């Protein structure tokens, strides 16, 4: 920069020179830029007037439109509910069996049931009802308490907790081994120990279990307590039982109740239909 006299008088330069004639001019910014600049601050003022904006000591300016994000959320939810309403209203008055029989409704229920299933059931029974260690598969047709839509609905509403007493005191190891081996083969009813030990009382003469008490089918090769070493798993169950309070090594198998305050009747119906359609409903 130099302090020389302005060599370019009458020009709108700022008086700053470099290298003789390189100088800074004081031009107006382009029109489009000026328009954009003014449009911006006008926009800001209008926007902050319309929408919640300026902070105040203990509150904020609410905006002339009274817009809030939670209102918008509620509005959106209402529009979703208005789409769902015709279905939901029907579901209220129908039984789970009637819903299942209606193609249109059961398709709707399968879609919303998936979410309910994920929230309430999948933790134990797996996302697709494939079961887990200690938790039964819901996609097969082996049901402890019956696989009709009413049975499933009842299981969800009230929960299930079967009892099998431990037999360690009553049966010696040899008998337990032989029983376990014949259960694994699916031919337990041919084993005399089956009747002698009284298994027949709960599991039935055909060994297929009794759905009203939740006793397992011992002949179908599907195991309530599935394990990689199935034989020792069976032995363990015979020895220590299921939910046998007197026996600390007893199996723990409790399906909690979802009725009452946990889930609405409609939600339970939805879940019953959903589970029924997983693959093994009867």
């Amino acid at each position, binding site marked *: 920069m130099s302090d020389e006299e302005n060599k370019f008088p009458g020009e709108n330069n700022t008086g700053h020179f470099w290298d003789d004639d390189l100088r800074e001019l004081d031009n107006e910014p382009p029109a489009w830029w000026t328009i954009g600049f003014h449009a911006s601050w006008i926009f800001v003022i209008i926007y902050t007037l319309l929408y919640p904006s300026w902070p105040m000591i203990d509150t904020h300016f609410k905006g002339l439109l009274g817009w809030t994000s939670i209102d918008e959320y509620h509005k959106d939810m209402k529009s979703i509910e208005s789409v769902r309403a015709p279905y939901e209203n029907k579901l209220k008055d129908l039984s789970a069996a009637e819903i299942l029989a209606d193609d249109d409704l059961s398709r709707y229920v399968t879609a919303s049931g998936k979410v309910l299933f994920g929230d309430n059931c999948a933790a134990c029974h797996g996302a*697709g*009802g*494939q079961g887990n260690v200690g938790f039964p598969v819901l*996609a*097969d*047709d*082996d049901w402890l308490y019956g696989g009709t839509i009413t049975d499933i609905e009842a299981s969800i509403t009230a929960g299930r907790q079967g009892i099998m007493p431990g037999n360690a005191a009553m049966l010696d190891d040899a008998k337990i081994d032989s029983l376990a081996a014949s259960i694994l083969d699916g031919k337990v009813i041919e084993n005399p120990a089956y009747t002698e030990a009284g298994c027949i009382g709960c599991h039935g003469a055909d060994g297929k279990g009794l759905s009203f008490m939740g006793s397992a089918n011992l002949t*179908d*090769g*599907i195991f309530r307590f599935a394990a990689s070493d199935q034989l020792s798993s069976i032995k363990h169950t015979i020895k220590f039982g299921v939910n046998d309070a007197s026996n600390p090594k007893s199996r723990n198998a409790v399906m909690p109740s979802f009725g009452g305050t946990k889930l609405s009747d409609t939600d339970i119906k939805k879940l019953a239909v959903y589970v029924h359609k997983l693959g093994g409903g009867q």
Partner: protein
Amino acid sequence: MGFNVSKENESDEKTVAELYEEADHWHVNTGDEIIHAKRMGGKFRDLKWKAMSVWLIFFLGPYLRWDGNQAVLFDIPNRKFQIFDITILPQDVWLLALILLFFAIMLAAVTSVAGRVFCGYFCFQTIWTDIFTKIEEMLEGPPTQRRKLDNAPWDARKIRLKVIKHSSWLAIGFITGFSFTAWFTDSYQLWIDVLTLQASTFIYVMLAVFTAGTYILAGFMREQTCFWLCPYARIQGVMYDTQTVLPTYDIARGEPRGKLTKGNVVEGNGDCISCNQCVAVCPTGIDIRGGQQEGCITCGLCIDACDSVMDKIGKPRGLIRYASMNEMKHLEVKPFHKRPRVMVYAGIIVFAIIGLLYGLTNLGTYDLKVIHERQPLFVQMSSGDIQNKYELKILNKTDKVMNISISVSGAENITTKGIREKMTLQPSKLTSFTVFLLIPKKNLKKSRTPIYFTIESYQEFGDSIEYQSMFYGPKYLD
């Protein structure tokens, strides 16, 4: 803007001052002057009218009927394109990719061969501007009178002319927007809806945007759009090569240029008589004698102008003519098959056309997808059968209700659940079914068995399709 193709060593010797001096002559219109191009008849002007008429399809197409429906309807809300007898659903949208490929490469090929032919003869910006200026000329007269009128004070005549001009421009803008919109919704119904104020806000916004866009772009921005807005104008410029045929001023023949003296070309002068007609008729306001430049849309109107002047002064036509750089320099002019770029473009175009023809003749009547349930992959049933769950998604691509049967093959003793003998598919809808397959364990030889779902139609027009999926069983089967 380089012209006269100066030799390199020459430019090296130029001083900085000389370079700046050259830049002083560099004139680019950035919108501060309005181009009032003169209209003149001629070969290329006629050609332009003919090429422009292609756009009648844009205006009239939506009113064509076929089987009681709009012949061509791009029904975005219902996600289907109806083109005469063909229905294209989103599943076949790969065809659209080929159409885009076709036009993109077509543009490249044409540009490589004959420059910005699209810009000069087909581009909506050029065409609409041409129509707008035609109206302007009909109302206000030739360029000199137009300039005079622009500078004249406002009186009744000026107001009347301007009002008529601007309202006809706006009317064209509206028709343009309406015609565009009519490709996407029923055209006759659209007239009724728009005129009775029943149409959706969206449609009114569309019409407003198009009306305003057409009015501003063709009425005011004009050649400025080609200079500063249009990306194709820039892209096409770099697709030229020395073989590309463009309107070119024959420097060797024309220079040194000079006015006629007593009706004759001055001895020693070239054929260019500085009549400036080529500049006067140019819709983008450039001087083609400056060489090829960004503003040139290769419309050939300067050729018409120059030819008519050459006729008058008794010189041969073609002082400005469509020619390649090589032709002007008397270098080799290669035929198409010796220009790799043209051949590659042609190859891609042929590929796109074949793909389109194949696609359109093999659209099929439905589309089948089978999704195997992953959780669980399989289930052991009480009977000893293994059960797999599948989601069948069947798209009916026709506009008729279809009845189909589904069969499964791939293993012995397959039991199915969820398949009815006759299943109904709604037109242009995707229907999904859950299907369970049960196979006795003894019939499975491996943990994974390929399974085939076959769909057959009860109707004559439906074809049969097959989809291969997998049947999973326990790992110990392997």
